[in-house]
Structure formats: C-alpha cells, structure tokens
C-alpha cells in the first residue's frame, strides 16, 4: 500500500510540476547533473522520474524488511521462541519446512515489488498520462527489484540457518545488505571501482536502462535468482545437519 501511495504521489507531482521539474533539472550544475545521470536519476521525462521511485527508500526498506524479517523468523526465530520443538517434531522433513518458508517469503516479495507496476498503472489511469508510460519496462524493472530482494532473502536465510537468535540474523543480514548497497553505489560513481558491480546484487539492478527499454531484464533476473537458489541450497544443507 505504501508503494502504491508513493506511486500515486509521483504521478500527481509529475502532472502538476513536470515543466518546473525539467527546468530545475537543467539549472543544476553540470557536474551534479552528470552525477545524477550516472546514478540513473534524471527527471526530464516521466519514465526517468519513475526511475527515482524505483530506487526510492520506501520500496527498498519495505522489501528489505520483508526479506530479512521472513528469513530471520524462518529458522532462528522458531529456535529462539521455542516453537521449533513444536514444528520440527511433527512428521515434516526439514526441507519441507524450509520450502514452505521460502515460498511464503517469495510470495510476499512478489506482492511488494508488484505494487510498483500496479501503482504505475493506477497512477497513469487516474492522472490520464498513459501516453507517457511504457508499461512493459516498468514490470521488467519490478521483476529485477523483486529478484534483488529474493537474493537478500537468500543470504539472510543462510544466516538464519546458522543462528539461534533473530537479532543475530537481523544484524548480520542488514549489515551485509548496507555494505553491498554502498559497494554498488561507489562502483557507479568511481570508475576504478566499477568491476565491483559484478559482486554485489545491487549492481544488477540498473533502473534507467531497464525503464528506457535499453536493457533486457532477464539476464539480471537470472543472475539474482541463481544467487538466491545457491543461498537457499546452502541454508538447506546447514539446516539438515544442525541441532535444533
């Protein structure tokens, strides 16, 4: 809901202020404008302006909280609260329990990421600006964003399989996520750090390229989902062997 509201505000603002925003953009110092463009942030077109929302802290925070929270509750949370004794002593394999948690977490991420293109459709309809929107790339960018946070969920789940407390999982997963995000940011603004983009999942989320249709989504989605699958597999191996 938060993401949808954010999108509606975006469309409302664009409708009323697009001229002023474009004017303001070109009044910026060249260096700042180039830096913003390098980071994929420009608002001279509606699609460019939407790119800002696709990188806005609101969807990032919601997706991050959902991904890390789901992972933390999945194993470490059950162990910490004591419900692991109730659940893992039923006729269920540990893999089945893990798979159920993965399915639930991915479904939540799909809903939150899906709120972005849903918000675009709603905003474009309500403000009568469909002619300025290219909807396919909006869906593609949301798919990459969902895959990005599925990847975050994957490594948080691995931490959860190793830990006995939710706090440990939150601290390690959130710390790693911030580090990976900053690495990606630095790789964008510092040319000598550019190769680091490949080692952080945030490096695979290139919004402007996706929204402009210049870049297909599937290679990035494939890389991120492969990383997710590898993390989930590692979590399963750990869970299968650990004492509860």
């Amino acid at each position, binding site marked *: 809901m938060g993401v949808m509201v954010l999108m509606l505000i975006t469309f409302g603002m664009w409708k009323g202020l697009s001229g002023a925003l474009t004017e303001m953009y070109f009044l910026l110092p060249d260096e700042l404008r180039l830096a913003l463009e390098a980071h994929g942030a420009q608002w001279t077109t509606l699609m460019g302006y939407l790119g800002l929302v696709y990188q806005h802290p609101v969807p990032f925070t919601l997706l991050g909280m959902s991904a890390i929270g789901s992972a933390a509750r999945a194993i470490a949370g059950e162990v910490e609260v*004591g419900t*692991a004794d109730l659940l893992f*002593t039923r006729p269920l394999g540990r893999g089945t329990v893990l798979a159920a948690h993965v399915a639930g977490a991915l479904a939540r991420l799909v809903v939150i990421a899906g709120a972005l293109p849903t918000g675009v459709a709603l905003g474009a309809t309500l403000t009568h600006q469909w002619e300025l929107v290219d909807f396919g790339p909006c869906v593609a960018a949301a798919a990459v964003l969902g895959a990005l946070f599925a990847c975050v969920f994957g490594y948080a789940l691995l931490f959860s399989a190793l830990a006995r407390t939710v706090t440990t999982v939150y601290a390690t997963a959130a710390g790693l996520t911030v580090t990976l995000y900053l690495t990606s940011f630095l790789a964008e603004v510092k040319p000598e750090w550019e190769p680091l983009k490949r080692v952080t999942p945030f490096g695979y989320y290139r919004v402007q390229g996706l929204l402009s249709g210049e870049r297909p989504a599937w290679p990035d989605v494939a890389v991120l989902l492969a990383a997710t699958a590898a993390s989930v597999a590692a979590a399963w191996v750990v869970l299968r062997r650990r004492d509860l």
Partner: protein
Amino acid sequence: MSEAAIHTRGLTKRYGRTIGIDDLDLEVRRGEIFGFLGANGAGKTTTIRLLMGLLHPSAGGATVLGADPWRDGPAVRARMGYLPGELCLYEHMTGAQLLDRLGGLYPAPPSRRDALLERLGLGADALRRKARTYSHGMKQKLGLVLALQHDPELAVLDEPTEGLDPVVRAALRAVLRDARERGRTVFYSTHNLAEAEDMCDRVAIVRGGRMVVVEDVHALAARRWHRVEVEFADGAPVEALAALAGVTVEEWDGARVRLRATGDVAPLLAVLAAHCPLRLQVHGATVEDLFLEYYRESAA
C-alpha cells in the same frame, strides 16, 4: 512389531566439552509406560531431543519404532506423539487452530481428540481463545492433546504434569493407562520419584548424563525409604524402634528421634502410635537420595 519401541546403544551427546549424555544404553519395550527419571540437568531432555531427531548424536545411535530418528525423521515422527518440556505454542493461533493445523500434519486422524479434551477438562470456550491468553496449565493440557490426539504408537512426554492440578494429573494417569491397554508405549520423563512410581511400569534413573539403573517400579518402591522425625512427650522408644525391620535410628536426642524407614511402614506406625508422639514429620526420598543409595551399593 516385535522390536523394542526405543533402543539406544552407546548414545552420546556432547556440546563442546560439556557432556549432555554419555554412552546411554536403553531399551523401552512396546506397550509399557517407561519412566525416565533424573534431577534437572541429568540429561533427560537431551536424550528426548535425540530420540525426536532434533539433535544429532555425537556417538552411538538410537532406533525408535525400528527406525533411525535422525535419518528417517518424518516417517518415525508420524507414529509418535511428543510433549516438549518447555512447551511454546504459536501464540497468535487459537487452541482449535493449533490442534487442527498441527494435527493435520499426521497421516492418522485425531481419533482421541474429543475424549482427551473432555478428560483433561479443556472446553470449547478455551479452544476458541488465542494461545497467548492461556495459563501454564492450559498450555500443558493442550500440549498433551496435541501429543496424544492421533493415538500414537509411542508417546514421548517430557515432564507432562508440570503445571497440572492433582485432578488433571489423575486424569492423565488414566489416559496413559488406557493407552497402554491399547498396546501403546509411553516414554515418561520426570524428576519426581513419587510420580514415576505412580505412573510407570519400569523406570530408568539418569544422573550426570549417565544411566544409573533400570528397574521395575515395584523394586524401586521397595528400595524407597522415608525419613521420619518424631518428638515424644516422655522420651523416644529407641530400642523398640531400632528393633523394627527396615528401620534405622539416625539421630536420638532424648524426646526426639530421627529414623530412616524402608519397606512396610505398618509396624513402625504401630510402635509410634503406642507411644503417643507429639509431632511427626515424614520426608520422602528424592531422586538424588535414590541415586546415592545406588551409588553406595555399587561402591560397597
């Protein structure tokens, strides 16, 4: 069907340098209520967690209903019921939801649910409430229904009477005896000696992670002693008391005497009654006392 319900051989669990249980050999026959007796920290819960496949043994192994609980966990647990020592429920769920959802994971239908709810006194109103509103006793009752509702071949109950009032304890005893009559096996962990005697057919005593002894409950009762402290108005009849079989005078101070009595206490009571005691205190032996008894015997 002829194999033991539980069989362990050299079962060991270490946590780093700490030993949870050490070289435990155990055999629980089918169709018995087997008491697993030990003080807190003796290794009872560790053993149970190994039997439930929650822990991996450091050495040795166990078979439960003929299968390895670690390797064949889901298949074995489908035939078991389990009440944890510290029961933690999903507190946002109602009692009925917990019974339905957790019970629904078993292949067998919850055929005993209604009878258990009635006998343990857990009514429909309670089942409609969320688990977070339950008292400790209600949680324990719900845990017992969860463990027994599908009429498991083997029920593993860790301190099942914790938080239950005497009436419900008596009802639980009847429930477990009924289960035994139907050929079910109960593995009953407790730190309470009197409770083990009351509920079980055979009892194993563990201490410091090691097995001390496995005995028939009648043999255990025969070994059990009481400490009796009596005060008389006109001096204690020490000679008469010391002459009684199974009675040892431990301390004597004119009018006051402290005795240790084993076995049949009727002759002791007759002597005491004949000398009009002013005050009488009786203390039952604890599981630690019993362990020391076995320890003295083996040292001798």
